[in-house]
């Protein structure tokens, strides 16, 4: 296998991983603040539909991506109002929003089914992008890929190096204690939910603007759920989210090649491979790490209503 072929495979792996990275990182921040947002899939698919529609109308990928993020954030605002503001059940609200999101996206996207668009432009740095073997991988991706990786680094820095990140983790660990210290539990949670929604929407718009540059109903195909699972199995750490998503992307590409080469295994089994491999790897990773305390944010999924 030539160096260029390896690079081609790696590029495909990274593109397959990017929507998961972005959506899972957003959900990671939400869950670190103690909120379980099961509406990721709905926010993602809305981002895909609205992002594509906006990009077609304005003929701008950037505006499309922004619209996608905005769509996710809008749905997240509803979710935040329900769960953070009114202390509604997070699981039920999240599931309802996924269903709502799937419906809304179908409505918005109805007029755009079958339309095609140029995929988001790739970076081109003269000289560097043409480097054999590594040029395309490091200097020839589209902006979403870089944004996803930058997001991972940014979130890790935010959570463990800034005061706001510390407060967010504290809110997710024990909202009663944090409230007793006078920190704004519900405000922090609401902003975290908005951020998570924007990430989910952005990840969705990546699908319709770059990954497969067209809109098809329910085109997220369960990636929102994978992102949710990734967060758990990555034990709420951004680095592991990236690793898990990359593994998932890798397995996806691998099984596609395997199916194409018809190696004699049933296609269904191969299609399940990425899911099985990701879960297995992340379970193994989180085994033996637990020495005490809790791996998950301790207040995850519990609602909070302060007295006043």
């Amino acid at each position, binding site marked *: 296998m030539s160096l260029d072929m390896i690079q081609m495979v790696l590029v495909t792996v990274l593109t397959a991983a990017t929507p998961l990275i972005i959506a899972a990182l957003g959900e990671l921040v939400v869950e670190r603040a103690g909120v379980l947002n099961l509406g990721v899939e709905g926010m993602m698919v809305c981002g895909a539909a609205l992002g594509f529609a906006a990009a077609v109308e304005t003929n701008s990928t950037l505006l499309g991506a922004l619209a996608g993020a905005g769509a996710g954030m809008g749905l997240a605002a509803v979710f935040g109002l329900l769960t953070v503001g009114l202390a509604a059940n997070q699981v039920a609200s999240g599931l309802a929003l996924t269903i709502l999101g799937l419906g809304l996206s179908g409505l918005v996207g109805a007029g755009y089914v079958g339309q095609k668009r140029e995929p988001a432009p790739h970076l081109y740095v003269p000289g560097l992008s043409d480097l054999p073997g590594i040029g395309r991988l490091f200097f020839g991706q589209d902006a979403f890929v870089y944004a996803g990786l930058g997001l991972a680094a940014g979130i890790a820095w935010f959570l463990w190096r800034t005061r706001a990140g510390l407060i967010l983790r504290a809110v997710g660990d*024990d909202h009663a204690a*944090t409230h007793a210290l*006078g920190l704004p539990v519900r405000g922090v949670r609401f902003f975290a939910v908005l951020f998570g929604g924007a990430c989910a929407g952005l990840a969705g718009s990546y699908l319709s603007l770059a990954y497969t540059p067209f809109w098809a109903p329910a085109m997220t195909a369960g990636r929102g759920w994978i992102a949710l699972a990734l967060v758990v199995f990555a034990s709420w750490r951004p680095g592991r989210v990236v690793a898990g998503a990359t593994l998932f992307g890798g397995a996806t590409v691998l099984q596609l090649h395997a199916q194409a080469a018809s190696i004699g295994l049933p296609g269904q089994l191969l299609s399940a491979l990425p899911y099985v491999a990701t879960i297995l790897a992340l379970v193994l990773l989180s085994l033996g790490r637990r020495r005490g305390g809790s791996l998950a944010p301790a207040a995850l999924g519990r609602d909070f209503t302060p*007295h*006043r």
Partner: protein
Amino acid sequence: MAGGTGSAGPANDPRPLFGAYGIVKRFGTFTANDHIDLEIHTGEIHALLGENGAGKSTLMKILYGLLEPTEGVVTHRGAAVRLRNPEAARRLGIGMVFQHFSLCENLTVAENIALVMERSLRRAALAERIAALGETYGLKLEPDRPVWSLSAGERQRIEIVRCLLQDPKLVILDEPTSVLTPGEAELLFTVLERLRGEGRALLYISHRLDEVRRLCARATILRGGRVVGTCDPRSETAASLAALMVGAQVREVAARPAAPGGDERLRLERLSLPAPGLHATALRDISLGIRGGEILGIAGVAGNGQAELFAALSGEIPAPEAGAVRIDGTSVGHLGINARRRLGAAFVPEERNGHAAAPGLSLSENVVLTRRATAPLSRFGLVRRAAAQALAARVIDAFDVRGAGPDPAAGTLSGGNLQKFVVGREIQAEPGILVVDQPTWGVDAAAAARIRQALIDLAARGCAVLVISQDLDELFEIAGSIAVLHAGHLSAAAPRAETTREAVGLLMGGSSGLPSGQDGPVDPTGAIARAEIAHAP
């Protein structure tokens, strides 16, 4: 924010440092604070005394900006201030040490402290300040340890250090000794005296009269949300203070159990149990026997095997050998809880909420949970609701359990009322053996007296009662003989008349006689029980 007067006035300022006047706080129709007046001056340790539910915690939350009073005004050096949130209170120099620590378990010590420090403070600078303060006051902390790995005493140290780092003028301490071992409590008292010496004011909330009489020169006593008196606790007796708190003389517990003449009903024979968890204690070679009519008290500092002993007795953890636990001669070491209940045993665990009772379920449903083996509460697997409600009503009636409505959820009851209920539920079965862990933990004096009396009466009817407690006053009041659990070992039981608090206290600290548990094991149950060594009267 709060319209404070800025810097503190001179030390001889006659105006109180902080005042609260006409404070009323209502939750719906319930009045938690009813026109409370309180003045706190610099350089004093002011006690706020009262039963559970007297309104102490509400008042303290108002002073810390966590609750807003319905009526009334808080003043700082004579000027009215509005405490809109804890940050405003901290800016005025009010610090707080919470009873149920406001610490995030999965954050480190330094992170927990950084939550309330100024934004610009760097990590290294904070660690330095924590170390310097620890040096000054003898409050050592390891900044990088996660809180979940620390004992109750260490957690309180974090609270205190976090409070002191902001150089407060008033420190509010809510039941600070309720989770401490005697040694840790002594250390705390030294720190408090020192803080007072520095000219700070302290508001000391407690219902432990001995501590208040030792530390405080002034006390405000609350009952039912109102101030019922202020006094100098040093010139009062514990009994007169208790009378003020409760409103009537606390009923003395009467009648000792009949002299043990019955047959042996509960027997432990060389019971050993490996530690069931990371922070748990192994039991080693525990032997004891209790006759009908006898109350055996087991003393010990939290985390010395009480939870494990209770679990082995109740059957939550089966014993390695069937013969290690015997009820009326029957080997039950391998039997489960309900099988033991059918043999006439009953159990009251330490934690009311979550162990003895399911907080979200009604009292009648909670009755079904423990009594389905010993009372006709179900038929063909279906709950007989009417029978359960009738049984719950009998317990409620017999033990004067007060709650909202005829069949409230367990979690809505106050600690004392729920404890009366869970003890009463088991006593109502007229068990032959009763094992009860910390029967009056965190319970007000009136409820505690009632529970103790019920235990004595039960024993007088021929029951063998085993009481695990850290309250030596309680054990000396009700137990016929006392043994001490230390590091999983049980000392020989000594008749009450032949031992003293001092002797028991020495055993509690291990053979060395030093107060143990300075950095003792984390309480395995998570509910950190209090350790109380009575100061000899």
